[in-house]
């Protein structure tokens, strides 16, 4: 591990006692290993995300938490009770389906009330709780409607109310925002997070959308090929990716491969063939000469026209020269694709802090890209 200086503190709100303990869980479908020896602790009150591409096993893991799949190996403990073989209808767990799975032949109230009826909650109490749940998702006036009379966003909230009304210990969300359009998705992200804080129920969400996972979760697990690659807070995952895979899956990262040239307490140099040295502000494990990859996020680099660049004293460290090959103007920021001397391309982004910059960068401009020694992160294989 890299001896990194300051790890960010976890987001407030999440407790430290474990609600869900997944121990060595695997799931095989025939010859296919969907989940491969996953161990994971989810704390009470957390908004935990399982993040990964399609086929990474995140949905299978979620379905095992819900009880729709039985683990082939390992155990799942919810509040200390092994639930691996407990059927879904006896688990203190509720799920919000990606398709919402609202009962089309029941009204909104009927849908929300269904779970309480199964518990045998008395009618007055049931009505009160249904009304409360619909109020929470701002659908108080829609109780008598049928699901097909609602918009996609409203249906999504009915599904949420239906799962929340049971006051589960654990709420599972399977790609909860996938079916919503972009604007609504952004608004719903914050709504979901604030509802979670309000009700204090532990949420576990499955998503393939890294932005969604970063915005909403207190902690997340990045999954790949049935395994968990890294678990951490959004900041940890983004700023200190455990390996190249995580770094490249979450956001954009420029990866440089080289070898360790020198190690010191305050500075370690990595020599990248053809480009020069990348300096890190801390010691790195491993002997001199060991091959290493370092990553630098586009927003952590400074870009300037070659004639306006900061002057250099001494050898060129953490400094690259190149030409602008392409520009993506996103409004809030611009992303520059810079072709370096050895032909490789890197991405550098710059916030557009004024309407019109006095140092505009355009195609084919010779530029200098620089960064601080605290910025590069070592990526393990």
């Amino acid at each position, binding site marked *: 591990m890299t001896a990194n200086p300051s790890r960010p503190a976890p987001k407030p709100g999440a407790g430290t006692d474990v609600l869900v303990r997944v121990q060595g869980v695997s799931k095989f479908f025939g010859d296919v290993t969907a989940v491969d020896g996953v161990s994971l602790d989810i704390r009470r009150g957390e908004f935990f995300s399982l993040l990964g591409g399609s086929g990474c096993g995140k949905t299978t893991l979620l379905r095992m938490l*819900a009880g729709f799949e039985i683990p082939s190996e390992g155990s799942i403990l919810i509040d200390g009770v092994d639930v691996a073989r407990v059927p*879904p*209808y006896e688990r203190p767990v509720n799920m919000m389906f990606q398709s919402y799975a*609202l*009962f089309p032949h029941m009204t909104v109230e009927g849908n929300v009330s*269904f779970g309480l009826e*199964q*518990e045998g909650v008395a009618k007055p109490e049931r009505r009160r709780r249904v009304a409360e749940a619909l109020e929470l998702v701002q659908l108080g006036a829609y109780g008598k409607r*049928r699901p097909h009379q609602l918009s996609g966003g409203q249906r999504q909230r009915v599904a949420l109310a239906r799962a929340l009304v*049971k006051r589960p210990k654990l709420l599972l969300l399977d790609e909860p925002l996938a079916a919503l359009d972009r604007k609504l998705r952004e608004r719903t992200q914050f709504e979901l997070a604030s509802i979670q804080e309000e009700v204090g129920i532990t949420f576990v969400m499955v998503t393939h959308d890294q932005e969604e996972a970063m915005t909403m979760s207190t902690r997340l697990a990045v999954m790949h090929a049935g395994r968990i690659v890294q678990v951490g807070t959004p900041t940890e995952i983004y700023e200190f990716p455990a390996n190249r895979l995580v770094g490249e899956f979450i956001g954009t990262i420029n990866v440089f491969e080289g070898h360790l040239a020198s190690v010191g307490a305050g500075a370690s140099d990595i020599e990248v063939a053809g480009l020069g040295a990348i300096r890190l502000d801390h010691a790195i494990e491993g002997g001199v000469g060991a091959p290493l990859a370092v990553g630098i996020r586009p927003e952590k680099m400074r870009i300037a026209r070659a004639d306006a660049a900061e002057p250099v004293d001494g050898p060129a460290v953490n400094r690259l020269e190149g030409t602008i090959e392409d520009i993506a103007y996103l409004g809030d920021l611009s992303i520059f694709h810079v072709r370096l001397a050895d032909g490789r391309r890197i991405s550098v982004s710059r916030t557009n802090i004024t309407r019109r910059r006095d140092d505009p960068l355009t195609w084919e401009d010779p530029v200098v890209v620089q960064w601080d020694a605290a910025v590069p992160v070592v990526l393990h294989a």
Partner: protein
Amino acid sequence: MPGSATIGRRLAILLPFLWLALFFAVPFIFVVKISLSEAAFSIPPVTDLFAMDGGLLTIRLNFDNYGLVLGDSLYLTALLTSLRLAFTSTLLCLLIGYPMAYAIARAEPGMRMPLLLLVILPFWTSFLIRVYAWMTLLQDQGMINSILIWTGIIDSPLRILNTDIAVQLGIVYSYLPFMILPLYATLERLDKDLLEAAADLGARPWTAFLRVTLPLSLPGIAAGSLLVFIPAAGEFVIPELLGGPDTLMIGKILWQEFFNNRDWPVAAALATMLLVLLAGPILLLERTQAEDKP
């Protein structure tokens, strides 16, 4: 050409209407016309409703046939027997067909087609031959009685053939596929997520079936029931072959009136009343379903 699209659309709507007019409305009007005429020794054996008497057009409508049909308890009994047999047949088909349709819909995708094929397979043999086959199975020296006697369960053959039980059996056997196919179609389309959602919300499998699967398969139940009930109510081959002389079914009576008595008007009156009686429930069903649709 702004009009061509509308003309095309109108034609498209017109076609089913033409179809319905040609193959349902026109023949039905003929039947009603015959039901209002009198029997005669002629070809066809009915009087004409319209007659030109000099320059005078006279129309003679004879309502006696309806009076006869309504007044004679024979017809009423036959009608009630038909409806009763059709109703119990529909119920039996539903009870037998639902689990079968459910099992096929839940089978491995690769197994569904072969299983459905087995349901449809009997259609490849003539209906008449299959009913005759039941005669040989059910008769006193038939296979069923032989086996029962051979195993010692009974001493003397059971009288099954030429009873209402045989008719019931024949109808259920013949019309079961008509129940299974629409049921399968609805059950197969049923979103499996809904059952998982029900289980997730605390419903045990049986509750989930009653509260989710069953209500959502109602359109299939309705379609299957109609497909069984209506032809069963008018069935005449099965009661003719498997039923006894005292099996009075309206289809059989109709047949007899037409071909044995050559009393077309009475037969036509019977047919008209049967249609009105059966069309009522269908229209009612149609309306309730239309209200339910999004």
